């Protein structure tokens, strides 16, 4: 059977545009509430901002990442793992310099009887302040590939 998408290994080394991103009080309030707990003290931002702030900070959206990785659709992207590192606590209103890119792409096959291929994709983004690293986010997604016959 033929499969769409010959592979996206060429994206290894791709660098995102990069930029500066601060965590606003409103998003800290709402996102912290969504986690089921009260706001942290002293302008601390909930550590879970280390998912979307790096992505937004380097100048891309989740939809643009799906496009970059040639996803067949939003529901064809599977979350595999996060590796989050905090060297300093995240705080509201600080300007975080965000930089990073794609560090790993590998075509794999799910051995579940259908032998459906997917691309194992890893991208990593660092947040720095005055040149010192504050946090690093490494995200692993699986991009499921559809057979040509289903298109």
């Amino acid at each position, binding site marked *: 059977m033929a499969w769409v998408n010959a592979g996206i290994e060429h994206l290894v080394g791709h660098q995102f545009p990069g930029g500066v991103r601060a965590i606003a009080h409103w998003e800290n309030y709402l996102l912290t509430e969504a986690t089921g707990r009260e706001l942290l003290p002293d302008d601390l931002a*909930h550590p879970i901002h280390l998912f979307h702030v790096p992505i937004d900070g380097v100048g891309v959206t989740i939809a643009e990442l799906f496009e970059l990785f040639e996803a067949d659709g939003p529901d064809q992207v599977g979350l*595999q793992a996060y590796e989050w590192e*905090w060297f300093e606590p995240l705080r509201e209103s600080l300007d975080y310099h965000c930089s990073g890119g794609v560090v790993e792409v590998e075509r794999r096959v799910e051995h579940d009887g259908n032998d459906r291929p997917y691309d194992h994709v890893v991208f990593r983004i660092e947040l720095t302040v005055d040149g010192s690293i504050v946090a690093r986010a490494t995200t692993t997604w699986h991009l499921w590939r559809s057979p040509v016959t289903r298109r």
Partner: protein
Amino acid sequence: MTSSSHEVSVGARLPDWVMADVRAERMRVTSAIHRDPNPVHWDPRSTRSRGLDGRVINQGPLNASYLVNMVMAWRGPTCLRGLHVEFDGRICDGDHVTARGVVTAIDPMTHVATCEVWLERLDGSRPVVGTARVDLSG
């Protein structure tokens, strides 16, 4: 209240943190903040083909946040140094999950504890598992 690092030992259990009712409205807020176009988090129609009967799927970061909340409730809001999580199942609105953990190692030089952490459903299954690194010196 937290205890000092020498009062924590390998094998100690972290206090459970319970999310008794995973809610769709929290997923919608999160999708808006994330600008996440994936409809499985906010449109019940998109999950019918998966046999979810009108339920939506919790975001991975929200699942991970329950583990973060457990660690912060244990050792304070600035204690978390690292979190590795892997996803082996979906959590949906209406689910009841408990964040649990156990200390597996303590670095005597840095006073950082390595903890096995996981989310557990009422049936005992663990859709999210991982490792947290927690600073005990605070």
